[in-house]
């Protein structure tokens, strides 16, 4: 069954895998990949918070790094934000399909995902403006940045 059919009722393991898959796909397919941090999937919570605070500041939203870090530490709050970012991805069927494939790949790995990569997903959802899919299709993703920023503001 497609993982998107379950949205938003995911087990903790499923959500961690899906968030990891979504973040990896956004990074791999980003048209502006060279402007992104290559280590974004391995970024510490502190560094991700700093980057998110900076991005919000560019949109005239005042949030301190500590505020965002506290939010990312709160698993329930960061899960809600991740679900909102995933909802944005879900709007684009081609992109969603690619994320579902990546999720299946991760599910077949004989390892678990130990942390929710909320910081990475939110950062990528804000910074990736356009994605280029392997088949040649392109998806404009810039509108999603505002939705994710709004979710962050609401939840922090």
């Amino acid at each position, binding site marked *: 069954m497609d993982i998107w059919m379950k949205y938003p009722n995911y087990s903790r*393991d499923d959500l961690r895998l899906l968030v990891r898959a979504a973040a990896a796909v956004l*990074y791999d397919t980003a048209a502006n990949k060279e402007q992104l941090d290559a280590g974004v*999937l391995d970024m510490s919570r502190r560094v991700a918070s700093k980057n998110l605070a900076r991005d919000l500041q560019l949109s005239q939203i005042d949030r301190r790094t500590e505020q965002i870090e506290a939010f990312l530490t709160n698993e329930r709050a960061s899960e809600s934000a991740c679900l909102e970012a995933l909802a944005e991805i879900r709007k684009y069927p081609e992109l969603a399909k690619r994320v579902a494939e*990546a999720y299946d790949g991760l*599910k077949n*790995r*004989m*390892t*678990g995902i*130990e942390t929710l990569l909320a910081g990475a997903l939110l950062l990528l959802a804000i910074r990736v403006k356009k994605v280029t899919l392997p088949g040649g299709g392109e998806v404009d993703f810039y509108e999603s940045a505002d939705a994710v920023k709004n979710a962050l503001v609401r939840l922090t």
Partner: protein
Amino acid sequence: MRVGDLSVGILAFFVGQRNLYVALCDTGTGRTSTFRVGACSDLIPRIELLSPALAGTSSEAQTEDIFHRFSTEWGRHLLPPAGSLACFDVLVLLPHSVMHGVPLHAVCVEQQCAPLGLMRGVVYVPSGTDASRCASRNPARKRGVSSWEFSLSKPNPRLAPRKPSRCFAVASDVIHGDNQRYERLATSIAACFDNGVVWPGRGRDGLNVSLIAQSFDSLCVVCHGYDAATPAKSGLLLGPSGGYGHRKILLPGFGWCGFADLPFGSFPATVTTHNDEQGEIVTVEELRLLFETHAELVALIGCSTAAGSLIRGGEYVSLASQWLGIGAVSVLGGAWAVDVRVAESVVPTFFERWLEWRQPKAIALREALREEVTKRALPISHWAVFTLLGDWV
């Protein structure tokens, strides 16, 4: 093909302060050549580039890019010239320092050439001492292997040593709860043996393994691996937890007594189980203290079971190397994240080649990987993850 006719080379690495050296010993002639393969200042930063792919922190495209560059571009700078390796059927690699964990079997030694692990039998041994210990405890070598004949194309062995017959297989998917799938893989492996037992992954697996492993020719564990920041805490994730475990201990003056014991280590708090129940972990340190085995092969089919870390004194600690330390002749493990779909195909083929065709283990793994890569175009990270340690026979 006779085992005695196989040409075996030992590649012993030495990381100096300024340069990386490798000694290549031809076990047939006893001739040893030493090569300076490069400057540490150049090679060590490159080796560090592999870290995200090995640790699974890079994206899928990044991972394949890292492995592709390593395999086809700079990886060959870690090895002696291609010509010096051409005559060997089997390579025994003895890494040193930062060379531990570097998947040299994924390297194409020449341009337009297949990776080493698909061309030759490749086995890693943590140290020279381990190499001689593993070989000396191998029952297959007891009567000599020079006349042992095997075929690469059909199961027609002659004068092969006794086939290992008893296998104990454990299967447990504590994270995703797909126990049946893992059990199927364990069952297909156990079925290669005349006496294969599958433990279905419930109850006190960890301690049961410790009780039973001593009397089996082969032990196979299909589960999730856990690569901890502290290497001794890395382990095999099994379960669910059954509370106290019972094992036998030898009390001087009393003989063997039953002993109820708590699990050695706690299940990692960051790992979520599919049903929210506590699982169990069999850690490296538990193996070190409580386990002993005489298995000819321990197959640890799970992520990062062959991955490890250097600790003080230059010792490389991994689950796989710890199994060698407690008596296993050889260990088949995953050097990073194993895809269960690939494991389902490669691992039973490897066991079939080893047990039915009676190919030496390193050749059996090469053949199983070759068959898999020929069948479907697999990314390097999917096939090169399977790593053989210990004795190659």
